[in-house]
């Protein structure tokens, strides 16, 4: 039973990673940029949720939606201000800019509120359900249902709507998409908006589940979500979900085995192994580079 318990914890953590990883994978799929600032959008989402619940006394779901909307706006602003000019620049320039934006967000938040962590308000008393001897907290159920709902919504947007079709077209071939009359700039902005909204939601959920948020909290989950995206095959949306879940479960197992200090290393070892053995990820196809 202990193991199933750990599995549940792992899936809860993994679904947070998966939500962040979706944003990474979508952005990478469309403009081939590791958006390092994505982890910080996640952090901003957590803080927006915190202020919405603790200061403005909002309902959890309203706070979640507010965080998603504001994060979407922030994501679009970041894209328009920092990344748009670099669309034809070298990859290194874009990556460095992303690192710069990430540092800027982190330290601007620290500048205004200090680096000390905040305790997330308790939304509701933790009550545990017992299913077959496994204790599942209400928080876990909330996390899981919200993440599953958002993932289904995303699948719907990507596969059934016009903007989703445009996104798929642009990620396949931006120039051809432009020739077909797709507004590439707007599509990229929409991708950033959707990805950042998911990161914002992940931030609020993270806050509710772990109850402790601070301005630098986005760094490690951000990188781990990227690892999750690589694990599943970057650019592939189901891959990000699976990668996130796998990573969450592996980390929880490593902690459960008593190596909690090595937990973060596990993620990086997975990253390096996957990059060496199968760089295109679990779901990816190998493409050879041509001259």
């Amino acid at each position, binding site marked *: 039973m202990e193991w199933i318990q750990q599995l549940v914890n792992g899936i809860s953590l993994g679904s947070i990673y998966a939500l962040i990883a979706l944003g990474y994978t979508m952005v990478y799929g469309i403009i081939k940029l590791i958006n390092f600032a994505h982890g910080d959008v996640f952090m901003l989402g957590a803080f927006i949720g915190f202020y919405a619940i603790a200061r403005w006394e909002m309902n959890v779901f309203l706070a979640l939606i507010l965080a998603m909307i504001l994060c979407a706006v922030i994501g679009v602003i970041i894209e328009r201000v920092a990344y748009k000019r670099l669309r034809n620049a070298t990859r290194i320039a874009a990556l460095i800019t992303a690192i710069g934006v990430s*540092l*800027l967000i982190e*330290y*601007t938040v620290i500048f205004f509120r200090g680096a000390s962590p905040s305790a997330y308000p308790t939304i509701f008393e933790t009550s545990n359900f017992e299913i077959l001897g496994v204790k599942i907290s209400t928080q876990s159920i909330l996390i899981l249902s919200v993440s599953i709902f958002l993932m289904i919504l995303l699948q719907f947007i990507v596969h059934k709507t016009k903007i989703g079709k445009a996104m798929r077209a642009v990620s396949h071939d931006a120039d051809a998409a432009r020739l077909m009359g797709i507004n590439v700039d707007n599509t990229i902005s929409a991708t950033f908006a959707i990805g950042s909204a998911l990161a914002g939601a992940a931030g609020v959920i993270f806050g509710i589940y772990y109850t402790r948020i601070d301005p630098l909290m986005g760094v490690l989950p951000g990188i781990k979500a990227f690892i999750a995206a690589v694990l599943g095959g970057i650019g592939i949306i189901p891959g990000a979900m699976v990668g996130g879940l796998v990573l969450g479960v592996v980390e929880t197992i490593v902690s459960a085995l008593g190596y909690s200090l090595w937990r973060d290393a596990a993620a990086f*070892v997975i*990253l390096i192994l996957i990059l060496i053995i199968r760089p295109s990820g679990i779901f990816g196809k190998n493409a050879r580079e041509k001259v």
Partner: protein
Amino acid sequence: MKKSKVFWSYLALALVIYAVVQFLISGNMVSYASQNMLITMCINIMLAVSLHVVIGITGQFSIGHAGFLAVGAYISAICTMKFGMPFVTAILIGAVVSALAGLLVGIPSLRLKGDYLAIATLGFAEIIRIVFVNIDYVGGAAGMQVTHQSTWTYAFFGVFITILVISNFTKSRHGRACIAVREDEIAADAMGINTTYYKVIAFTIGSFFAGVAGAIYAHNFYIIQPTAFGFLKSFDILIFVVLGGLGSLSGSVIAAIFLTAISTYLQGFPETRMIIYSLVLILVMLYRPTGLMGTKEITHLFKFGKKGGTRI
């Protein structure tokens, strides 16, 4: 001027700089704080120049340089503190172990390209850091006490040898092969350059000198902690190279001197310092993606009237 003449004049200049500062220090005319800033500056120059070989010359985007700094720092600290070795030996051992770590990281990860390499090196640096957190022999997360042994002499000669080796490496046949890899890896491969070999060489040299810097760093601050070698340190080093100009040795040196001075004065306001850093990084990338110096060296500025293509 003949090449050898240029070389000797640089050597003379370097010795004059050393002698003047050493004279000021022995005459107690430099405050302790400024002396410390000078050593930090030297450490940062070494780090910037060693990363410059990897990013600027070979075009391999490594963002885990702090990992090699950590290896150099810890190994040299173990040598002096646990085995009582002299400092010079400790520096050498630290640097060699760091170079081996670079080799170990380089061989598998240099098959990756661009963003993937960046994230893999970041991962390796983080693994190195976590390993040090978990080894109780070196104090774990609490850190390790180290005696203060770094002086201006050590720091200066560290910088001097780093720059000497790396500028000569760049001008050598191997260095040109590395530049070919930077410009176009596939084309370089087609011309018969063993790209993996040169990438690993550059990576190993870079980590060797990062190890030297680490040894001097460790013996300058009384205590070393794994937290000091995280992402932020790697990004700090990256900023020197990027700001100075990807591919310009003198650019990275100037950026390292300039930014160390700025951050020393902003020490009381760490947030402001990071905000300025990141803004500078973004603005430079948006408006001058090649960095302040591009691939030019400072010596090019003094060669008036010489026409022709830009030299490397």
